[in-house]
């Protein structure tokens, strides 16, 4: 299990390497990253990875371009940690 920190939020949570960041967050009742389709399509949970390593499943190119992905942008529902991570929410698209 790895420690996950969302910039600007004091509530850290833990995530195993077979669980998506978003799923691990939702399971413990934290809502610092907006939750949308949870399938890599809608882009609501877009984050910038500030530190840490991870693997990623395919994400909608409309939501995360090749250049963005190379710069550490990702959808939290599609990334699986390989270390502790710090991420930043890109856009608060949903009001809650």
């Amino acid at each position: 299990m790895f420690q996950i920190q969302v910039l600007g939020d004091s509530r850290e949570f833990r995530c195993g390497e077979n669980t998506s960041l978003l799923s691990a967050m939702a399971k413990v009742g934290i809502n610092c990253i907006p939750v949308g389709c949870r399938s890599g399509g809608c882009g609501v949970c877009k984050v910038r990875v500030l530190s840490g390593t991870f693997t990623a499943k395919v994400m909608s190119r409309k939501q995360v371009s090749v250049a963005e992905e190379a710069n550490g942008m990702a959808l939290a529902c599609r990334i699986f940690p390989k270390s502790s991570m710090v991420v930043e929410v890109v856009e608060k698209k949903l009001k809650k």
Partner: protein
Amino acid sequence: MQKGVMRPGHVQIRVMNIEEALDHYCNLVGLIETDRDEQGRVYLKAWTEVDRFSVVLREADEPGMDFMAFKVLNDAVLESLSADLQAYGCDVENIAAGELNNCGRRVRFQAPSGHYFELYAEKERTGKWGVSNVNPEAWPRDLKGMKAERFDHCLLYGTDIPATLKLFEDVLGFSLAEQVVDPDGNRVAIFITTSMKAHDIAFIDCPEPNKFHHASFCLDTWDSVLRAADLLTMTDTPKDIGPTRHGLTHGQTIYFFDPSGNRNEVFCGGDYHYPDHEPVTWKAEDLGKAIFYHDRELNERFLEVLT
């Protein structure tokens, strides 16, 4: 006035991984694979449908809807509706028979909402799946998952709802069954039908054109909707909302997402509509009750998560 558009015929949905999508639409929703083509598209149908396919899955790098099609009575109707669309000012694209396997020629146009629609008259008629047309049994015994009965409608988000309504009413003969109207009198959502169903297609106003909210599949009973909810948990499939009832159309419903983030609905029941019925109106300020009749509160995810 009805103009020979019979019903929704098919929807082509973009998915990011075709095998994951097939597991979802066949093993969970309960559609049946009926064909594949050289582009890699996969054709599916629900068991009560009489034609060869109603859902086409296309692998792409972003999800969403390519187009939705309506079946018309015959080729003469197709020809006259094509002329009417052009006279109305629509650009019409003619797509040759066979571009979709076992489907006749299609007439494609773009609505003011930004979405692409098609009309066609011919598709291979294979009959209901798993039951005979003579002395039919009640249902086939080897259905999977939610056992969806038919592809029913789509809800789409897009631009210029008034012009979209006018096109569907004046040219295609649809009837406005329900609407959501804001305090200034603007229609922000329309539920329109070419049949007795509460909606064959619905639109909600959105600043961005050509967005996909959901494709909906019909189930037989409320018990089936609850069983669908059980299956979502058993398969760890992301649920959106439900099981609940809509105010709009009064259908009993649950929403969830496919593995590419496209929203699906399975539902049962709901109101009926004849062309002489006045539209049912919901006030935009009561949208919570209109959409979620039990909670009576809006859910931002339902309104804003689109593909």
